[in-house]
């Protein structure tokens, strides 16, 4: 990975934690009301999509830096906010936003790990990179 990309990652990851919560809280993710009559699941395939999305997000939330419980509360809140959305196009749009949050979480976790490993094992390299004016031996 070239150096300029590394610096870009540093800048982006600093904004990531707050940004991620913003997206989660203020984005509308749908919740389709649980089927009260058995067998009506098949009638609306979006229902299972939404449920799977919730499960996937919950699974990812276990590693959330501010704690799994914190994440779960906010996730539930975000889903509950939209439990009355019925238009399939709307729902599809919101599910896509949920998938986007999944990608953001994965990127967040990767960056945290990468930065931690880099800090622990490659400190010398970084200071060598920052000493731009130093003549090369």
């Amino acid at each position, binding site marked *: 990975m070239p150096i300029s990309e590394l610096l870009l990652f540093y800048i982006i990851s600093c904004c990531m934690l707050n940004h991620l919560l913003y997206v989660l809280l203020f984005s509308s993710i749908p919740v389709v009301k649980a089927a009260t009559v058995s067998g009506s699941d098949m009638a609306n395939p979006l229902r299972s999509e939404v449920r*799977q999305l919730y499960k996937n997000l919950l699974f*990812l939330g276990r590693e959330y830096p501010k704690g799994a419980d914190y994440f779960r509360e906010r996730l539930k809140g975000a889903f509950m906010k939209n439990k009355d959305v019925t238009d399939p196009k709307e729902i599809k749009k919101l599910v896509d936003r949920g998938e986007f949050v999944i990608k953001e979480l994965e990127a967040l976790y990767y960056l945290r*790990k990468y930065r*931690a*490993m880099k800090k622990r094992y490659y400190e010398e390299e970084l200071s060598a990179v920052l000493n731009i004016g130093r003549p090369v031996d």
Partner: protein
Amino acid sequence: MSRVLVGVKRVIDYAVKIRVKPDHSGVVTDGVKHSMNPFCEIAVEEAVKLKEKKFIKEVVAVSCGPTQVTETIRTALAMGCDRGIHVEVSGKDYEAMGPLQIAKIFAALAKKEEASLVILGKQAIDDDCNQTGQMTAALLDWPQGTFASEVTIDGEKVKVVREIDGGLETIKISMPAVLTADLRLNTPRYATLPNIMKAKKKKIANMKPADLGVDMVSRVEVLRVDEPPTRLAGVKVETVDDLVAKLKANGTI
């Protein structure tokens, strides 16, 4: 045809604060969050990438340890490995287990499975040995491409770009070979819930070191484990004269 062995190690999660046991015999591991070694994740990702590019047919994830390591093997399967091998080591043997024993196990497995490549992480974040890959290559008498930051397969040879102190070194080694993954080799994928569900169908074979003819006797004994010394607080001075006086008193100038 072409088969790759990938080693994965179950270590204490990188984000956990490590605590030394009161008797200084080791580190507290009970009830502490464990996960796959970050460099092993990179190794698994590289193997899966090679399979996706159709350079190899099968990726086998291997881990040594007690029953809990099957979780780590499952994560490797969820990332795209085809099957797993769990080499069961527990109790005193597990505590005394080090790179030499692992290398012997991997050497035996590589021969048994007829692997063309053995890919490992460059080092584990718990012991920082950075020896297993090198020892495995030596035991097998195979070439090694360590600290790999780029791997390309070119017919029967592998081109490896290695991250070394002075910069980058490109070497070409013939297969079969041992590679160890460095941080910038690739970006490991996350094992999402759907992938983990799919991985439940994949097989994990179980065996003991004795089945491979490996003796687990350790030649190394851990005498004592201590925390690193706490950093002393810095001293603030008001003027430059104060600084010079303090440095003189310290014996630095």
